[in-house]
């Protein structure tokens, strides 16, 4: 569904991505692991278009979309759940979710998407009339994920969804990821520092370090390799 080849990008004069390549197969959870500063978020940003690419290609559903603007990519069914909580604090939970269905393509399925989000996060249904800014951190993260689902994506890229959450909520988040794959049929590209949980959830894993892919394999292969675990994952 998504192929990334020799991607290069960075900020100002500083190059962050040194030609990493990866593939995300339709209907799977692909996990991108690696330490701080490895370039994981930059990779997602470059694929999504919020960081301008310097070189390389991004192919999505057989089409080269490397330099398409972000809003076109969303139109094509790509979604990014950004790191940190980018919510509209002065709007209610439901208004925030509706904002996600901004595009015509998503607007047509607005009510069913909303039902889907509420099914995934029953908590949000209880809180739907509350201002998003008054929610707990975990609930805000749910709204962020929910809002991305409202764009009716086929591929959803999650940037550190469990960051800053209590252990119980981390578990819930990974449970949600599983449901998004199995029940909704989404393809997922997951960036995480929580290696344990991430290896559990993934079908395929890439390990990133210093802007390149250092290793890849099924979760079992990664777990079996002491070198990879010690060198990059600190496990």
């Amino acid at each position: 569904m998504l192929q990334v080849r020799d991607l290069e990008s960075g900020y100002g004069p500083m190059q962050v991505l040194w030609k990493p390549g990866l593939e995300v197969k339709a209907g799977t959870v692909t996990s991108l692991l690696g330490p701080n500063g490895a370039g994981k978020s930059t990779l997602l940003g470059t694929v999504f278009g919020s960081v301008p690419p310097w070189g390389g290609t991004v192919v999505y559903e057989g089409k080269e979309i490397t330099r398409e603007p972000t809003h076109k990519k969303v139109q094509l069914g790509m979604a990014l759940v950004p790191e940190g909580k980018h919510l509209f604090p002065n709007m209610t939970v439901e208004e925030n979710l509706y904002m996600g269905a901004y595009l015509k393509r998503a607007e047509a399925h607005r009510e069913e998407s909303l039902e889907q989000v509420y099914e995934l996060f029953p908590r949000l249904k209880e809180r739907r009339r509350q201002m998003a800014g008054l929610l707990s951190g975990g609930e805000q993260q749910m709204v962020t994920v929910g809002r991305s689902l409202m764009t009716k994506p086929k591929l959803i890229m999650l940037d550190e969804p469990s960051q800053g959450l209590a252990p119980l909520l981390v578990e819930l988040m990974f449970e949600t990821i599983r449901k998004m794959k199995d029940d909704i049929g989404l393809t997922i590209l997951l960036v995480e520092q929580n290696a344990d949980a991430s290896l559990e959830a993934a079908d395929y894993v890439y390990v990133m370090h210093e802007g390149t892919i250092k290793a890849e394999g099924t979760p079992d292969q990664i777990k079996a390799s002491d070198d990879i675990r010690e060198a990059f994952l600190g496990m």
Partner: protein
Amino acid sequence: MKNQVTKYYPMLPVLAAYAALFLIGRNMSGMWQLVAMLLFYCALGQAFNIFLGMTGYVDFGYVAFMGVGTYGMALAISRLAHIEGLGAGIIVIGFVLAVLMSTMLSIAVGAVALRLRGAYFAIATIGVNEGFRFLIEGARIWNGSEGIIFTAQLNQILGREAASALATFWADLFVLIIAVAAALVTLIYMRSKIGYALTALREDEDAAKVMGINVTKFKIIAFITSASFAGLVGASSWALKTPYVFPPEVFEIHYTIEAIIIVLLGGAGTLLGPLVGGLIYGISKYYLSIFIPGFQLLIFAPIIIVIIVVFPEGVVGMLKAKTRNTAAGRFIV
């Protein structure tokens, strides 16, 4: 259908306020001059609000659009006066030219500056009005620093009496119409998908992008709309009232600052905000200049401090929060 009409209820208080202003000005002796000034500030606020209020971007060079609008009207009258039979049609041409010129300038500025975000945009726009002024003076465009004086042409086309009526009454009425039109456009934007896109990008540009909103496009739409209204304000409140333009006067940065104060005082991004802000600002400035002449500029600083401390959301923003979910709240937007 009912829904379609109720959507535009918030226009009622706006129309009522402008009608009241008009009636006070016409029927109370000696009030028209004050009303004209208030109309100018309200119109400037309404126009600027479409950009500053709806996108959250601060354009310090905003007065440049008003300036080129003034030039649009001045050029139309001074260069086309020799054509026979144009009559009052020359004013229409002037307005069209004002909109065209301010739109063109806004596209040129926007195409470059709107790629920058937040504070960087504000910094980039600081020099626009000064730059344009020096361009006109230095390159001797449109008579350079000598400006354009078109009193004679205006008298020749319209006759002395009509020209005087234009300056003392019609020009202000045009400003009123422009202010109402700007308010209407603001409401139409608010009630359409454009408004949602602008709200999203004002609150969190990254989140807006993630939702598939083409942020640059919507910023440019708001910028051009706002700039063309500024051009109209310049054309009527300046060029038609005082039939001359000099670059240092029409590109004076303090109009930008006044516009920022009006919008923030009233409530950025609200429909009624610029109206309320314009009235408060205009009235206090007018009476200060009578009671302690020369000190009226001093009110800038205290007003800004009061806004930040007492109502960070502006007067209307505060009212809006208080009347949320009440009957009155339907009209306060």
